[in-house]
């Protein structure tokens, strides 16, 4: 098992030196107080995760761990190259399967798997979205099992969430431990909202004149990610709209304002495909906008992410992503795929049933860690029950080896101890290129030994640091700056005060 601070040989890894020194110098009582303060800050900001189906507190906090996870600049550079490559291939794949279907004709990906996939959107066939981009915001879930061993666990090409936690985790850490940041040179991440807005503007329809009007479409305040929707709209300075705020007239999308109807050019939607347009998809949807797909196909609005992008992140399609990279880019994949058994294949099914106690089995359409079997941690009874479900509907499942996810020091009731983590970096694809802020959202399983990091299953988050290259020149510059500062005298004029 690989611990990111202690390494495999117990030697503290270079990136973690600052954190190690800080932990050594900080008494447990201080950590406890800071942990409590962090929780107060999150409550105050209102950054909660709503799980309405659970009962109890409908606005609970996702646990936050105050010990940062640190990635060295070289580790990150490697990851970033891999993420760019993978996202480029996913977009090329989406353009292809809704266009010429070359990868299917070449027999690299089974046609039935794509064309009969529920996420394959018939309305997109033969249509090229503005800028040729399908997945504008991709969340690529990465796990690590060794110093050099990064695996992509899954791709999220539809409406990945969590980026607000990435940003707010950093904000809270900077408030709690300003000293710590002065000792480590951590790459900033606060430009994400700006990058996102630039990405969205870069895919504005060609017909749009002047600065495009962007809006964020949310399902509303009962959605579990509603806080994130408000946060991003606010940070980008765009309107947060619900379906009822929009109307389509003559294939143009408008928002209803206090000054009448106003045109919308780019819609960053956080509503699922099925609910986007009751005329095109589910007729009972109250969250969407009637006629939206018509306006989209007429080239009058851009939708991010594009409808139908989900066909690229299906767990059964996942197996073929390395093949996509070779096919479209002519490169070898930089980030590895986890070996995966597709249970639809009888041989694979037989293997999976024989090895349930060492595998993780997932539903191909599942998300958020629900309906998942972690073989080594499940009881014999649960494995037997699961085997029945698996036999009844094998094509609904895939299986992967149980990876020994890396651990990071995490503060809990027993003090500081290693807990398993994963990483979700957010990759932005615009008509003008790919943008990635360094790092991503680190999710951590808060209980000892647990491998399930999903927030809906009690997982927490921690701040993710990417260290900047040590740059001797900039260091000497900042030193001379502070010197000249200390020489200067306060020069403000005196404040007036009450005369008597």
């Amino acid at each position, binding site marked *: 098992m690989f611990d990111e601070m202690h390494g495999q040989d117990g030697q503290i890894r270079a990136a973690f030196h600052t954190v190690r020194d800080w932990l050594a110098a900080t008494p447990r009582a201080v950590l406890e107080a800071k942990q409590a303060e962090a929780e107060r800050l999150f*409550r*105050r900001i209102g950054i909660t995760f709503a799980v309405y189906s659970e009962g109890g507190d409908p606005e609970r906090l996702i646990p936050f761990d105050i010990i940062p996870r640190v990635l060295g600049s070289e580790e990150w550079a490697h990851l970033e190259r891999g993420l760019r490559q993978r996202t480029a291939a996913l977009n090329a794949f989406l353009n292809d399967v809704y266009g010429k279907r070359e990868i299917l004709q070449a027999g690299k990906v089974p046609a039935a798997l794509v064309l009969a996939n529920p996420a394959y959107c018939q309305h997109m066939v033969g249509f090229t979205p503005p800028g040729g981009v399908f997945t504008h915001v991709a969340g690529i879930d990465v796990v690590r099992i060794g110093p050099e061993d990064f695996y992509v666990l899954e791709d999220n090409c539809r409406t990945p969430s969590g980026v607000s936690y990435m940003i707010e985790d950093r904000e809270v850490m900077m408030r709690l431990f300003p000293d710590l940041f002065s000792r480590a040179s951590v790459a900033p991440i606060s430009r994400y909202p700006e990058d996102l807005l630039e990405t969205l503007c870069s895919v504005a329809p060609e017909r749009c004149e002047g600065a495009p009007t962007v809006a964020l479409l949310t399902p509303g305040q009962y959605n579990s990610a509603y*806080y994130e929707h408000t946060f991003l*709209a606010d940070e980008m300075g765009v*309107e*947060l709209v619900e379906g009822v705020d929009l109307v389509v007239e003559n294939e143009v999308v408008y928002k*209803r304002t*206090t000054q009448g109807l106003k045109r919308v050019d780019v819609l960053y939607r956080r509503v699922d495909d099925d609910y986007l347009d009751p005329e095109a998809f589910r007729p009972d949807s109250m969250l969407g906008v009637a006629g939206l797909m018509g306006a989209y196909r007429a080239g009058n609005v851009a939708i991010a992410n594009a409808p139908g992008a989900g066909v690229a992140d299906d767990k059964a399609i996942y197996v073929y992503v390395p093949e996509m990279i070779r096919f479209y880019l002519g490169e070898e994949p930089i980030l590895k795929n986890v070996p995966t058994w597709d249970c639809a294949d009888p041989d694979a099914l037989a293997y999976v049933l024989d090895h349930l106690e060492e595998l993780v089995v997932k539903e191909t359409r599942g998300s958020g860690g629900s309906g998942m079997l972690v073989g080594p941690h499940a009881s014999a009874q649960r494995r037997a029950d699961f085997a029945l479900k698996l036999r009844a509907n094998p094509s609904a499942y895939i299986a992967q080896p149980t990876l020994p996810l890396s651990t990071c020091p995490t503060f809990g009731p027993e003090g500081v101890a290693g807990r398993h983590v994963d990483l979700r970096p957010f990759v932005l694809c615009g008509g003008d290129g790919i943008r990635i802020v360094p790092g991503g959202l680190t999710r951590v399983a808060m209980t000892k030994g647990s491998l399930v990091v999903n927030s809906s299953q009690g997982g927490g988050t921690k701040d993710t640091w990417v260290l900047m290259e040590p740059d001797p020149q900039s260091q000497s510059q900042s030193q001379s700056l502070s010197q000249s500062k200390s020489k200067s005298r306060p020069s403000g004029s005196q404040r007036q005060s009450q005369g008597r």
Partner: protein
Amino acid sequence: MLSRTADSMFWLARYMERMDYLARLLEAAQRMSGMGMGEDGDEWGPAIIAAGCEGPFFAHYDKADAANAVRFLAWDTENPCSIRNCLERARANARAMRTALTRDMWNAVNEAWLEARTLTAEDFSPAHLPKTLDWVKGKATLFNGAYASTMLRNDAYWFTRLGAVLERADNTARILDVKYHLLLPGYSGVGGMLDYYQWTSILQAVSAVRAYRWIYKDKVSPLNVADLLIFRTELPRSLKACYGEIVDSFTCLAAAYGGVRGECHDLADAINQKLATQDIAAVFAGGLHEFLTQMIEDTADLGDAVARFYLR
């Protein structure tokens, strides 16, 4: 801005103002109930009427005694206009348009809501009620300060202010009308001690006892209390002061939107004009209750006109 956002700003401010009013009303009613008036066990009837919810109240309770009235006005989830529900709705509106709120406004509403979740029946017992009502008023004041000092002066601000002053005008008319309902059953002579304390309680409820003394330099009289609450622009809760702000908010909105005016602008001007051309003697001659009833109806019509023109 989005019509839905404007609607949420408008109602956020209205519900916060209404919450404040209910706390003041409960305070006044608690003082008055100590003076032994009204039908036995029904002393809180006027407060229920002044809150504008006798319909839902008597659908749930037989008697307007202290226990029932306090529970209903303060904490009952069955009452759409209880303090608790006002806060609940205010926060739902705030949450629905977090992006239009400044962080201070959000904190004021959200922290009130978080703290309110820890309140228990004990906090509404007669012994603890005054302290709890002070807490409510404090939260409303915090919100008012937050929006007044942190919002940009644009349409979002004018809708917020419009909601607050429209609600305040409505509430002032209602609390002044309490006196009319008090007189009906247990009437014991104008000019008596009881009468004096009832009028004083109304002044206390709107934090205007000192303002009264400052302006009139005289003992509390019905004519002057009504004059203060209706016509004196020095008092920010008077109908005339509220309508001055309402007209001002409409003017700013029209200016922000290229001079476009609608029915709501004309209606506000008409009500404002009526207040400008009347005085308290004329109001008493025509009947205070009749005047206030008309005012409450006009204000409701104005609210509908705002919704038709801007919020849908």
